[in-house]
C-alpha cells in the first residue's frame, strides 16, 4: 500500500484544514438535501430511501454524492446533469430548475425523476444541486409503472427529457402540470416535484454560505480537488494490487423471444496501475422483456459493485474517472438504447453486473471475497378490495430480503436487503394487511436456502399469502434467477431458484416462474415464493461439522441436507431439547462418498435427472446442487440448453475448486 507518511507537503493546493472542511461541507450540503427530502416527500417509495442527491460542478461532474444514497442511483447523476448542460447550453439562468428522468440520457428508470438547480455566484455558474427520487407512479400501462410486458418505453410511463420547470425563479405551472398529469397521482407527484426542487435549494444555500466564508475561487478549487482526492484515494488503494485481466460471465434466465437458454452478460476487468477498467462487450442483445439496462444504470452497477470493495471511498466523479468501462454498442442487454424497455433492469442486468464484479474482485482481494447475492424480486398484486363498499383499487407491491453470498471468513448475511439498495426496507406485514385484502400466511427464513459452502450463503426468506376479499385481481412478477440460480464460488454451491407458486400442495398447484405478467387470481387463492439465499463460498465438504451442527439446531439447515450437501451425518437425540450429535464415522464415510461421486453427478444424463424429479425421487436441492440441472420447477420439464450452460458455469465456479 502506498504510504504518505513520508510524503512532504500537503496533497492539495488549499490549506489542509480548508480542504478537509470544504470536502466535509460538500458532503453535508448533499446530506442536507437527503434530510430535507425525507422530511418533505410524498412518495412512500422515496420515504423508503429510494432517492439520491449530488452536488455537481459547473461541468456537470459530481463533487459529492449522498452518503446514504441508494446504490442503484450511484454514478448516474452526473450523466443527467450533463444532459441538462448539453440541452440548454448558455440558456441556464439563476432561479432555473430542470427536471429529467430519461433513461436514454443516463437515467435509471422512468420513476426516478431528477431535479437539477444551477448554483450561481453573480452571473457565473459554479455548480449544480441535484435530487433524484422514485415517484410512486409515472404513468404507463400499469399502476406503479412496472409493466413486465413492456418491450418499449412507451408503455413504461412518461419519458422526461431535460425540461425547465422553474425559469428565473418563476414556477412554470404549465410544464409542471404536463408532467404530473401523466401520472396516476398528480397531487402526490406535484408534491414530490416541489419537495425535490426545494431540497436542491437547501444545497444551494449551503454552498453559497461556503462561498461567502471561503470565497468563490476557494470553493471552486475545492470542488475540483475533492474529485482529485477521491481519484488519488482509489489509485492509492490499487497500489498494492496485482496488474492483470480477469473475466467472468453471469446470466439472465431467458429471453422469451428466443425460447430457453441463458442470456449472457460478460464482464472483463483490467488493472494496469492507471485505474480500473471494465469491458462488457460480447453481452447478449437486448431482451424482449423489460429486463434491460440503459447505459446509466449499467455504469451505476459497475460503480456500485466496485465501491463494495472500497467502502470508505466517497463517491464522486474522481471515483468515476478511476473506473472506466466499455459497455459496447447500443442494442444490448447492458446498453439497451431507445426505445427498449428498461424498467426491470433492477431485477435484470443490474445485479448480474454487480455480482460478476464481486466475483472478479474476490480473486483480487480474497480477504473481501463474496459469492453471489440474491437478486431483487418484486411481486405486484393489483385489483379491487372487496372489503370496501366501493371496491377501491389496491396495489400490493412486495419485495423481500434474501441471502448474500458466503465470504472468505464467514457465512453470508441472511435475510438482507438486495445489493441494489441495502437501505431499502421491506414492508411490515401488519401494514400491508390493513391496506390490502391479502392475509400473509408466513414470512420466515427458508431452511436449506443458503448455498452450501465452507462458508454457507446467507439464508433466503419465504413469504406466502392468501387472497381474502379480492375482485378482478391480477399478479405480476419482476424477478429473475429462476434458472440462472444464485451461484457459489471457490467450490461453493448454488442456493435456490426464484419463482412463484400458486396453491402449492393442492390439486390446483401451479408454478408461475420468476417473470410473468397479469396472471388472474381470485379470493381463496394462495401464493408463495422464496427469495434465494446467497451462494456458498468454498467446498461444503470442508465446512466444520460443528458449524453444520449449529445450523441444524437453528434449522437453517435440515438434518437431511446436512448429510446431502455437507456430508455431515447428524444423529437426533432429542430435537425438542436441541440435543444432536455428529456421527463422526458416518460423516467421514459420507464425505468420502460425495467426494468420489460429485464430478460424475455433473455429467449425469440430465433427462434422467429430470425424470427422477418428476417422479419425486429427487428434490430441487438435489437436482440443482448435485446435478446442476435446470428444470421448469413446476412440470419438471428439462431445459437442455440452459442446463448445459449452467453446468459449464458450475464446473468453473464450483467443481474445479474441489480437491477431488
Amino acid at each position, binding site marked *: 500500500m*502506498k504510504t*504518505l507518511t*513520508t*510524503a512532504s*507537503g*500537503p*496533497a*492539495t493546493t488549499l*490549506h*489542509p*484544514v480548508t480542504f*478537509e*472542511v470544504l*470536502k*466535509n*461541507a460538500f458532503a*453535508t450540503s448533499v446530506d*442536507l438535501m437527503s434530510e430535507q427530502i425525507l*422530511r*418533505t416527500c410524498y412518495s*412512500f417509495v422515496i*420515504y423508503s430511501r429510494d432517492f439520491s442527491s449530488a452536488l455537481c460542478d459547473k461541468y456537470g461532474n459530481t463533487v459529492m454524492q449522498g452518503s446514504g444514497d441508494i446504490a442503484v442511483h450511484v454514478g448516474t447523476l452526473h450523466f443527467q446533469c450533463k444532459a441538462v448542460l448539453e440541452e440548454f447550453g448558455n440558456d441556464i439562468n439563476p432561479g432555473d430548475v430542470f427536471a429529467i428522468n430519461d433513461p436514454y440520457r443516463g437515467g435509471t428508470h422512468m420513476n426516478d425523476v431528477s431535479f437539477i438547480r444551477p448554483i450561481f455566484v453573480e452571473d457565473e455558474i459554479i455548480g449544480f444541486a441535484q435530487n433524484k427520487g422514485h415517484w410512486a407512479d409515472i404513468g404507463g400501462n400499469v399502476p406503479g409503472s412496472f409493466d413486465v410486458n413492456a418491450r418499449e418505453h412507451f408503455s413504461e410511463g412518461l419519458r422526461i427529457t431535460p425540461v425547465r420547470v422553474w425559469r428565473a425563479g418563476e414556477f412554470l405551472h404549465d410544464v409542471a402540470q404536463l408532467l404530473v398529469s401523466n401520472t396516476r397521482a398528480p397531487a402526490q407527484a406535484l*408534491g414530490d416535484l*416541489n419537495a425535490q426542487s*426545494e431540497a436542491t435549494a*437547501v444545497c444551494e444555500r449551503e454552498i453559497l454560505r461556503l462561498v*461567502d*466564508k471561503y470565497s468563490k475561487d476557494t470553493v471552486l478549487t475545492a470542488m475540483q480537488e475533492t474529485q482529485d*482526492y477521491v481519484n*488519488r*484515494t482509489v489509485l492509492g488503494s490499487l497500489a498494492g494490487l496485482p496488474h492483470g485481466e480477469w473475466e467472468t460471465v453471469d446470466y439472465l434466465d431467458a429471453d422469451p423471444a428466443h425460447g430457453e437458454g441463458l442470456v449472457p452478460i460478460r464482464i472483463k476487468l483490467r488493472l494496469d496501475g492507471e485505474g480500473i477498467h471494465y469491458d462488457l462487450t460480447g453481452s447478449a442483445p437486448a431482451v424482449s422483456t423489460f429486463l434491460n439496462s440503459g447505459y446509466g444504470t449499467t455504469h451505476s452497477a459497475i460503480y456500485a459493485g466496485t465501491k*463494495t470493495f472500497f*467502502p470508505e471511498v466517497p463517491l464522486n466523479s474522481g471515483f468515476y474517472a478511476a473506473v472506466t468501462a466499455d459497455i459496447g454498442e447500443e442494442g444490448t442487454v447492458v446498453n439497451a438504447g431507445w426505445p427498449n424497455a428498461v424498467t426491470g433492469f433492477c431485477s435484470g442486468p443490474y445485479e448480474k453486473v454487480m455480482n460478476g464484479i464481486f466475483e472478479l474482485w474476490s480473486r483480487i482481494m480474497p480477504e473481501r471475497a463474496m459469492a453471489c447475492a440474491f437478486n431483487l424480486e418484486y411481486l405486484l398484486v393489483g385489483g379491487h378490495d372487496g372489503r370496501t363498499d366501493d371496491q377501491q383499487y389496491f396495489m400490493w407491491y412486495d419485495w*423481500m*430480503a434474501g441471502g448474500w453470498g458466503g*465470504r472468505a471468513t464467514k457465512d453470508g*448475511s*441472511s*435475510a438482507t*436487503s438486495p445489493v441494489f439498495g*441495502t*437501505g431499502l*426496507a421491506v414492508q*411490515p*406485514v*401488519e*401494514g400491508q*394487511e390493513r391496506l390490502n385484502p391479502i*392475509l400473509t400466511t*408466513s*414470512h*420466515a*427464513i427458508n431452511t436449506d436456502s443458503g448455498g452450501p459452502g465452507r462458508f454457507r450463503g446467507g439464508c433466503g*426468506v419465504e413469504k*406466502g399469502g392468501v387472497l*381474502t376479499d379480492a375482485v378482478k385481481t391480477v399478479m405480476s412478477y419482476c424477478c429473475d434467477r429462476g434458472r440462472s440460480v444464485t451461484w457459489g464460488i471457490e467450490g461453493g454451491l448454488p442456493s435456490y431458484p426464484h419463482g412463484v407458486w400458486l396453491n402449492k400442495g393442492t390439486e390446483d398447484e401451479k408454478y408461475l416462474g420468476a417473470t410473468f405478467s397479469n396472471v388472474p387470481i381470485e379470493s381463496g387463492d394462495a401464493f408463495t415464493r422464496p427469495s434465494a439465499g446467497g451462494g456458498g463460498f468454498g467446498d461444503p465438504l470442508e465446512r466444520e461439522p460443528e458449524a453444520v451442527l449449529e445450523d441444524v439446531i*437453528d*434449522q437453517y439447515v435440515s438434518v437431511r441436507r446436512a448429510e446431502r450437501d455437507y456430508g455431515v451425518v447428524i444423529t437426533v437425540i432429542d430435537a*425438542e*431439547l436441541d440435543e444432536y450429535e455428529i456421527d463422526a464415522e458416518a460423516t467421514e464415510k459420507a464425505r468420502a462418498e460425495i467426494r468420489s461421486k460429485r464430478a460424475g453427478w455433473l455429467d449425469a444424463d440430465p433427462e434422467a435427472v429430470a425424470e427422477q424429479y418428476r417422479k419425486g425421487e429427487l428434490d430441487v436441492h438435489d437436482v440443482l446442487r448435485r446435478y446442476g440441472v435446470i428444470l421448469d420447477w413446476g412440470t419438471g420439464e428439462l431445459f437442455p440448453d440452459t442446463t448445459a450452460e449452467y453446468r459449464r458455469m458450475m464446473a468453473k465456479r464450483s467443481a474445479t475448486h474441489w480437491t477431488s
Partner: protein
Amino acid sequence: MTDLRVAVDVGGTFTDVCIFDDADKTMRVTKVPSTPDDPMRAVIGGVERGEIDLNNVSLFSHGTTVATNALITRRFPKAALVTTKGFRDVIEIRDGTKDELWDAYKDVSGPYIRRRDRFEVTERVDYSGRVVETLNEDEARELARLLKKRGTTTVAVCFINAFANAENEVRMREILQEEMPEAAVSTSAEILPEIFEHDRFNTTVSNAVLGPLVAGYVERLDNQLKDDGYDGDLLLLHSGGGSMTPAMVKRFPVRLAASGIAAGAIAAKHVAEQCGYDNAVGLDMGGTSTDISLIADGELRVTKEWEVEYGHPIVFPSIEVLTIGAGGGSLAHIDIAGSLRNGPQSAGADPGPACYDQGGTEPTNTDANLLLGRLGTDLASGAMTLRRDLAEKAVVETIAEPLGLEPAEAAESIIDVANANMADAVRLVSIRRGLDPRDFALLAFGGAGALHGAEVARELGIPTVVVPPNPGVTSALGCLLVDIQHDLSTMYTAVASTADSDDLEQQFAALESTAAERLRHEGVAEADTELKRGISMRYQGQWRSLQVPMGTGPDALTEAVRTFHEEHERQFAFRQDDNPVEIYQLHLKALGKTPKPAFTPAAADGSALPDPVERREVYFDGQWHDTPVYDRDALRPEMELAGPAIINQLDSTTVVPPSTTAVIDEWLNIRIHLSASEGDEK
C-alpha cells in the same frame, strides 16, 4: 431532617454523583470510577465518597447502563419467543436493511433471541382484530411444558395483529403462567400495543430478555439503599426523559435502555430554561463521542425511532440524541490520499491520548489541545499530569511533518477539523427538523465540550455559548430533574371528521385509568399526578403520522386537527386542508411530579475579577497569545472577562477565544458571547 436529593449517573468510565442540599440550596458533585462487573459497587461507593447519609435523603434518582450493556453483550437469561405460526423469524428478518450500506463484511448484529429459542403456535387475528383462528390450546400447553423443560425463565409472546385484539396473546400468557409460574412473561399488546410487527416484537423481546437481570439489579440496589437508611422510592431514569420506580421496572425493564443519554439532554434543557433560551443545542462531548440534543420551543425532541444497536428497534418514546464519533480521544490521521482526517476512530481509555503516557503514539484532540496550551498539564487538580512532549511528538510525526506544518499549526488544524465535523452534525440535526442553528444557543458540556464549544458556535454562526457550572457531571444533574413518567398508547383508526367523540373519550379514559393505576402503584399522590393526552394523525393515504397534543371537552378533536395541519406544515413543509385527516393512535403521558431542587440565583457581590492563577501562551488563529488562566471557583456573577482566556475547574476546561467575551451569570454559568460581526455572519 431529610434535605438531600441525590442523583447517581453511571457512565462507561465514571460514576457521577450530584448532591443537592435543600437546606442551603447548594449543589456539590463527586466522581468515582465505574465498576462494570457490578455497577452497584460504584453507586454505593459514590454515596460513600460523597459522604451522604442516606437517612437524610428525600429523593434518590439513578441513571444506569445496566440495560444498555446487557443488550450489547447479549448476556441474557434463558429466553424464548412464542409467536404466530409462520412468523418465527420476524426479529431476524427485521426490515432487511443494513447500517453499513457499502461494506459487505459488516453485518447487522444478530437477534436478541436465537432461532432455536423461537417457537410457533397456531392462532391468527386479522388486521381488524377479528380472530381468524383461536389459539390452539393443546399446542400452547405442550409448548409451555417444553419451555419449562428447556429451562426457560423469560418468555416474549408476540402474535401478529395482537395490537388489534390481544385475546389470543392473553390466553397464551395464562397457559404459560399455569405451566411455568416462575417464568416472566411479556406480551406484545401489553408492552407496546402498536402496529408493525417487527417494532412491536423486538420491543417486547427486549423487554423479556432484560426482565430478570434489570429487575434483579434494581431490586438489589433498592434493598441496599433501604438497608442503609433511605426511606423513599428509588427513581430510575428511563429513555423517555422521565423516571420509574422499581415496581414498574419489573414490568417494563426495556425502558431503562439508553437511560444515561437522556440525562444529559434533560440537563441541557434545564440550563437553557435557566438562561431563558427557548432554542438551544446541547453539545455533550466526552472521551470518545459527542451527543447532540436539540431543544426547540422549550421542548426536547422526542423520537420513537431508536435502538441500542442498529436493526433492533425499541419503540418507546425516547429523547432524541445524535451521537457522533468526535471526542477528546478521537484520533487525527492523514489518509491514503494525503488529507487530514479526525475521528471517528478513538484512542479510547487504553492507550488513550499520547499525552497520557500509556503507549499512545497517534495524536488525539486532547493532545492537540494540550499542545496549543488550551488544556493545562494538570488534570483534575493534579490527579494526573499530561506529557506535553509526547503530545507534540505525536502531532509532529503523524500530522505536521507529512503536511509540512509547524507543530502548533498542525495541532490547530486538528482542532479545526474536529470543530467543523461537529458543526456539520449540528447542521444535519437542525435541518432534519426544519430549524436554523443560528437561532440557537449552544450549551457545551461533557468533559471536553467547553474546550470546543466557542469555536463550534463560531462555525455555526451561533452567537452565545453556555457552559454550566459542572460540565463534567451534567448527566447526573439531569437525573435530579425528572418526574415519574409513563407513556401509554393505543391504536385507534377513524376519520377525524366523522369520529365518534364519545368512543374516543372512552378510549382516553381507559388509558387514563391504566396510567392512574400505575402511578398509584408507584405511590404517587393524586395531587402530584398530571395526565397529558396526545393524538397521532395523518392525511388519509399517508404513511407518516404526527403526534399533537389533545385537550378535553367537545372541541378537543377539532382543535387537535387544526394543530395537526399547522404542525404538519411546520415539520414537513406542506399541509393539505382538503385531504381527510385520519386518527391513528392515542397517547397518554402520565406524570407523577417529584419536587425539584430549588436552585437559587447567586448574588453578585461586586467583587473585582480575581487575578489569574497563571498566565501561559495559548495558540489561537495562527499565533501564540499571552493568556490568563482563571480558577472557575473564584468567578462570581456579573464578572466579565475578555478572550483570550482559559477557565479551569476540576472536571473541565473552558476556552474563551480571542474576540469573545465571557460573563458569569447568576446561576454561575459561563456565557460566552461571540462578537457581533461573527454572530451575525450569514
